[in-house]
């Protein structure tokens, strides 16, 4: 007795191959989260990521050639930054920036940069890369 005709088996074989390929991709993504995060940042403009940084008072650093956009900056305050500012940080998509702002508004200001871990889908590796660029200042009493 033939369980399935040839045409049905061909379709089922394709589905089986696709399912396995999907599982392999998922397993590879879980095994290499840093590489996945880097690949997902390919479409981001590196110049745009520095434009958000606020220049320090006093101007440019001595000995460093002047650039069109001042690269040196103070860290961005996650308790005051807008979603647009956050979205210009390296590795922060507009969706992630919106989730950061939503978490801040829903659960209150971030106590520290580590507190960003409460934002959904903000992984430890990405947080470590953002750490030097961010700060979490305590909000003023009237805020």
């Amino acid at each position: 007795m033939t369980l399935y005709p040839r045409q049905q088996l061909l379709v089922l074989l394709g589905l089986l191959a696709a399912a396995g390929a999907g599982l392999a991709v998922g397993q590879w993504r879980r095994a290499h989260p840093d590489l996945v995060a880097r690949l997902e940042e390919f479409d981001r403009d590196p110049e745009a990521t520095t434009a958000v940084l606020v220049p320090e008072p006093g101007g440019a650093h001595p000995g460093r050639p002047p650039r069109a956009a001042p690269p040196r900056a103070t860290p961005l305050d996650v308790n005051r930054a807008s979603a647009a500012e956050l979205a210009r940080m390296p590795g922060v998509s507009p969706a992630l920036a919106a989730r950061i702002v939503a978490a801040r508004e829903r659960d209150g200001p971030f106590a520290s940069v580590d507190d960003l871990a409460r934002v959904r889908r903000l992984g430890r590796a990405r947080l470590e890369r953002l750490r030097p660029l961010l700060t979490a200042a305590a909000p003023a009493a009237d805020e």
Partner: protein
Amino acid sequence: MTLAKAPLVPPALAFGAGIALAPLVPGALAWAAWLAALVATAALLAGGRPAWAAAPFLVGVVAVGALRLPRSTAREGRFSGVRAT
């Protein structure tokens, strides 16, 4: 009930068996079984033996069921900043 009326019962049972076997089957073995099943099914179909090809296909479904769940999970917790008084 006949197979003609419920043709997806064998793959469904195979998939369920794979999920049940997942804790017992090493990942490498499941991947090897999936690949071997894929090749065997394709070879039997190419050789004009569709009646035999169903068996390795179902083995492949078992392997996919076993691979379906993540092998490891990362769980992270944190304390909220609110102090209970």
